[in-house]
């Protein structure tokens, strides 16, 4: 297996190794901030891996993925808020208590964002192309304003969670342990995504992006394929949102902002659309750029804009594309 590994496979392995080595080095060198940065990379990568399923495989240019990130974040925020104030989320028709348990939070985040993706997907997929872009952007804004107006959960100010949620057997307050948890989730999702890309569903979705008419004339429904991809995609980005909220111990409406939707797309494009590890590379490069350029100048976003423009105009395929050459068929 290793002997037959493609160049892209080696690059992927190197990326994973790097992502693991840096925080371990930081632990040894006692640089907790670097561990936090690495955790940020892993979580953003997870959000972008989610988007990549809709964008890279399904060809759905969603400018509203912050919705799912935000829903994941608020799932964590609301549950933890009730747990720390000793109140219940609702008492009627059934009693729902808050919780500080990560697995429960994750489950709620995934289910809630998948449901939102289903509703938004059903509506948005009635159209395609530019309409789809504008509608997903609009739904993002809807959630943003809703979060602002929802004063029960902090409105514009958001919610602060004092203590990070727990995971059985781990002390999540220790940076390296929380990093490990996020890293394990990213690896698991990457593995599942790799399976998905080769599966019958992945093959059909891939074709639905390129030639929807063909997919229809072999008896499959391209819109339904894309809808399922959108739901899976939203669920993964939602999970990332829950982790992000736990990283910061804070949620606010900015998790729903259109800028964030744009940023996740940038992560995917920087790394390489439709590549398994494209989003991971993109997230790493983005966080490094943010940190490095941000240290040089207050106006680092100008330079991000310029870099992005150059990539769009001259370097389609992203970083993984440049390094690995064009993708090869996987067997």
């Amino acid at each position, binding site marked *: 297996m290793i002997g037959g590994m493609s160049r892209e496979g080696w690059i992927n392995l190197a990326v994973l190794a790097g992502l693991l080595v840096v925080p371990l080095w930081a632990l040894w060198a006692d640089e907790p901030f670097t561990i936090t940065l690495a955790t940020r990379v892993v979580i953003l990568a997870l959000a972008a891996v989610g988007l990549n399923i809709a964008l890279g495989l399904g060809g759905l240019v969603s400018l509203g993925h912050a919705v799912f990130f935000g829903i994941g974040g608020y799932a964590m925020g609301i549950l933890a808020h009730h747990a720390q104030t000793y109140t219940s989320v609702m008492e009627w028709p059934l009693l729902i208590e808050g919780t500080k348990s990560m697995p429960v939070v994750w489950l709620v985040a995934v289910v809630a964002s998948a449901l939102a993706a289903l509703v938004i997907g059903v509506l948005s997929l009635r159209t395609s192309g530019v309409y789809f872009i504008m509608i997903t952007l609009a739904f993002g804004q809807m959630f943003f304003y809703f979060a602002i107006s929802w004063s029960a959960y902090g409105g514009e100010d958001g919610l602060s969670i004092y203590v990070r949620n727990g995971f059985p057997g781990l002390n999540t307050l220790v940076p390296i342990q929380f990093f490990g948890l996020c890293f394990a989730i990213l690896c698991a999702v990457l593995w599942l995504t790799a*399976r*998905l890309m*080769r*599966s*019958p*569903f*992945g*093959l*059909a979705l*891939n*074709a639905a992006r*390129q*030639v929807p*008419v*063909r*997919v*229809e*004339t*072999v*008896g*499959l*429904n391209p819109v339904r*394929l894309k809808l*399922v991809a959108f739901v899976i995609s939203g669920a993964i980005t939602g999970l990332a949102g829950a982790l992000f909220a736990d990283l910061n111990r804070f949620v606010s409406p900015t998790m729903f902002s259109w800028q964030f939707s744009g940023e996740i797309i940038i992560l995917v494009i920087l790394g390489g659309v439709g590549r398994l590890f494209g989003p991971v590379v993109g997230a790493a490069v983005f966080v490094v750029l943010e940190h490095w350029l941000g240290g040089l100048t207050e106006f680092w976003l100008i330079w991000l804009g310029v870099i992005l423009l150059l990539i769009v105009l001259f370097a389609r395929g992203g970083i993984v594309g440049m390094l690995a050459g064009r*993708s090869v*068929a996987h*067997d």
Partner: protein
Amino acid sequence: MTEPVLETRGITKRFGALTASEDVSLDLKAGEIHAIIGPNGAGKSTLIQQICGLLHPDAGQVRLGGADVTRMAAAARARAGLGRTFQVSQLAMEDTVLQNVVLGALGAVGRPWRFFGAALRDAELRDRAEAALAQVGLCDVAAMRCADLSHGQRRQLEVAVALSLSPRAFVMDEPMAGLGAEGSKRMTGFLSELRGTAPILLVEHDMDAVFALADRISVLVYGRIIATGTVAEIRADRAVRDAYLGEEA
């Protein structure tokens, strides 16, 4: 006499003042190639779209295997046994030849909702796909990307995808389009044998191919069928000569 495999009964389609199909009735019987010819703008494409379910007629019926499929969407008709090829190849260019045909097999088997196992390692899908590739003679290039194929190979692959559905009937929109003399000849030979697998409704501009292949020919002019008959009958038909063949001769 047995029921035709594919049949239209009195199909009519209007776009505003333009009548694209007017009372079109034709049938396709087991084992035959039924060619539809007609000048540009005669409504051949519109007719095919209606037969395949990408357009819906204002009046009339489309029947497949004796059942009324007029209200069915394109995907449902494909599942009911309609294998279609396109005038302009509709292939996933980034994917390999094998992946393209497996897509057809996936449609035929009807189970795209599997998210884990590798599609290309599924024996059922793979057998179907490889059989279709073998029949059109593309086994050698199965691992090549579609984008790297020659035009002629893409036309063959187009047929292979339809074939992988194991359809009851083929609807082919100009399978000879863009093929040179040599390619046309090979495709003609291939289609001639294919009619034994399933009958073919053939829309084609290449008259040599049509006269060589067709068991019957229908002539479509201004959305109406002005004549249906054997090659000899159509060649001899006065109205057809006036309306169509005469122009080109």
